[in-house]
């Protein structure tokens, strides 16, 4: 049971959170300007590194705020 640092509520059990996947995948400013394969890349392709990974979480059972953190996917350590 990871302890995830919510910026507003402090550290809480991971069961209070929803996972949001890779951080920094912005909704394309002009979807129509993208080819099908570029759009598919936005929809379906995400990094899956072994090691530090910047990802999104939502404190869904608490303040419902979204935030990003860097987690080591090998050790589950929250790095920042």
């Amino acid at each position, binding site marked *: 049971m*990871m302890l995830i640092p919510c910026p507003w509520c402090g550290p809480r059990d991971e069961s209070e959170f929803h996972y949001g996947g890779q951080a920094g995948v912005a*909704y394309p400013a002009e979807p129509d300007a993208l080819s*099908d394969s570029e759009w598919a890349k*936005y*929809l379906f392709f995400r990094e899956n590194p072994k090691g530090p990974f910047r990802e999104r979480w939502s404190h869904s059972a608490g303040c419902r*705020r*979204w935030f990003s953190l860097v987690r080591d996917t090998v050790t*589950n350590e929250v790095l920042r």
Partner: protein
Amino acid sequence: MSQPFRTASGGLVDRGRALAFLFDGREYEGHPGDTLASALLANGVHRVSSGIRTGRPRGIFAAGVEEPNALVQIEEPFPEPMLTATTVELYDGLVARGLRGQGRLAADPDPGRYDGMYAHCDVLVIGAGPAGLAAAMVAASSGARVVVVDDQIRAGGSLLGTGEHLVWVDRVTAELEAAPEVRLLTRTTAFGYYDDNYVVAVQRRPGLPEHRARERVWRIRARRVVLATGAHERSLAFAGNDRPGVMLAGAARTYVNRYGVLPGRRAVVLTGNDSAHDAARDLAAAGVEIAAVADLRDGWAITGVAGTERVEAVTLRAPDGIERRLEADLLLVSGGWNPVGALYSQAGGRLVFDPGLAAFRPDGNCRQALEVAGAAAGSYKLGVCLAEGAAAGKRAAEAAGLVAGEIVLPAVTEPEVTPPLAVWTLPGGDPATAFVDLQRDVTVADLTRATGTGMRSAEHVKRYTTAGTAHDQGKTSGALTSGVIAELLGVEVGALGVTTFRPPFTPVSFAALAGRNRGMRFDPVRVTALHAWHEANGALFENVGQWRRPWYYPREGEDMAAAVLRECWAAREGVAMMDASTLGKIDVRGPDAAVFLDRLYTNMISTLAPGAIRYGVMCRPDGMVFDDGTVIRLAEDRFLVTTTTGNAAAVLDWMEEWLQTEWPELRVHCTSVTEQWATVALVGPDSRRVLATLAPALDVSREGFPFMTWRDTEVAGLEARVCRISFSGELAYEINVSWWDAVTLWEALLAAGAPLGITPYGTETMHVLRAEKGYPIIGQDTDGTVTPHDLGLSWAVSRKKADFLGRRSFSRTDTARPDRKQLVGLLPDAGTLLPEGSHLLTGPDETAALGHVTSSYHSAALGRTFALALVRGGRGLIGQTLWATLDDGVTPVAVTGSVLYDPEGTRRDG
């Protein structure tokens, strides 16, 4: 004579009380403080079970959780399979029998209560031996919040087995128990070590009344952890090392000192380290004749073990080469001591081989906030254990920002230590009787076969031979297995390593893990304000997510089909009402609320006038339908959005996600008001008359209150919001009042509608009514691969908006292809009710499915059965015949449009 092997005095059992128990059908006696194992030994019983594969007799081998042999099945008071006799606390009336490998689960539900508890502390000390007690005392002296867990019935750890410093143990125990911020949990085994110092432990709580939990799972979050889990002795691999009467030397010492039990009359000791000499000394002092102490370091060897049911004699070869056969009923072995590293390994730490210790020990470099003290760290001198524990406790207190006081540790005189021998296999004899894992019956011969096939990794050999996979998880066999494999491969054991430890450290019952989360408490049951009424009026219920919703209300003598037909008929021809309070409701407000909803919904929301309502569809960016519902515009900057019952939380999360992460510039706030409002759907051609009776101030006329508008008014004297929306195609209203007023509204509607035969209906009727109109249920008729176009909802997809979630995906090749699965209606042959999930084939002998049935009902209005289905290119197949699979064959179905009832919409306005 009762308990012939009990010593005359000594030990920590209560000799003043006798406990009667039954083992393998025979009556015995023991004392409070005994385990089943110590009580059996007191009665001269060694053989407890048989080898799971070989069937060879097996006896009590250890004195604690590391026991590989003495598996028992508890029969009374309640069946529990596969416990070890060394961990079962003796109680009066215990009935048990020995087990060969596998136990038997109880056929009846366990009447016992189990629960769970969360705990938080500055310092968690695991193990209340000398190191753990010292750590706990020092940490407690700082005022830190301390939890101490220990699996034994009393604190003391190894001191209970050696009988040393018990006065100090008692004093420390009393002080810890009296300290306000300390929780000392005995009979509690820490079995799982998870991320961020989350440790799970199970506490046995014998002797409590039935309404209290007999076992409790503790979920402990610790700022720091001190692992003081001690060490387990390991065996040696030699032929005949599994005979009853072969016992770990330290265990024999524990039986003598702690339990006042002689494990035999005449013992041979075989060892490669100093500790077995101490055991021999204590046994001798208690009256066991020591036939020989064969120290492998001096060149002694063992060449034979005689006896099948029990050791009868041991043949030793002396350093001078002369073999001697010694009569003995006990063979004490010590292959060395393994620091108990299971929890350290679970915590993410690595175990390294220490040649000086001849054992694997924690590498001291775990990323979690823990430290290891005492024997668990490989420190076997008592003084060092105490000092390490005290230092760990001090550091843990400092880490919590507290200052530890000084404590007095017992003075210890340490004997000189001769380094242990790293020895694994003793040559000679049949390798097929030289066991490394007693519980899985894995021998040196098995390991030889494994390495002979080319296996080079301890993990591979483990999976091939099953060594270390049994109920003891290789506590006595893990390091020995690695040692033997290393010898066979001719590599350093340190380079080979040990296999990974995983939770649980000891077996835990499912009942304990479940705790009170069983039955109705498995998952919260959500109910509406009208639930008591539904229950009192005979509703049967359906689970929709966590909600319990009325399914239908059978009358005397009615089955489900009859009740649903009656309810449907009332809604189509008279007036009916349903509790629709479970619909998700979200208040969306702010200057940019309309812009926001335009981006979320496929259709245009911003053009909606205050006072009006629109049906809306939400897609994910991939274009697949995520949810649907109505959007009510309360004011320029205020909307009330409804969601499907099961999706309310997901939709609110979805809104927050986009607001917070993509569109923070939008001035919009979303608030769940699902339970603020109770909602009653009033449906049917007579609904207008019922509403008019109760809402005198409301113009209910067709023109005065048109479809898809709402009005705030009083209904039955209550503040209410009435919406002219319909999920059935009939004239209908949804009346919203405060949750507090739901019962009053419901009863007023019942009374006002009574002359018109108003009929409460449930979810099944709702489903039939909506399916007759081809309205899809998200999650039933869709599965995350369905676009609004697939559902025939192209009319709800805006062509004017610059963008909305999902729009770009509608032009993807895959999403735009014409042969996607589309929602259609199906009319089966006379009377056949298609099973939901039926596959749809192009011919009776075809096997490739074009799609499947998503909804299927009897229709009162149509006078027949019908179904909705997702069918590849379905709209192009309207008018054709497909074949639906049944349990025992296929049946023809006519494909139709999805709107089967009143396709012209003539009934909507009454």
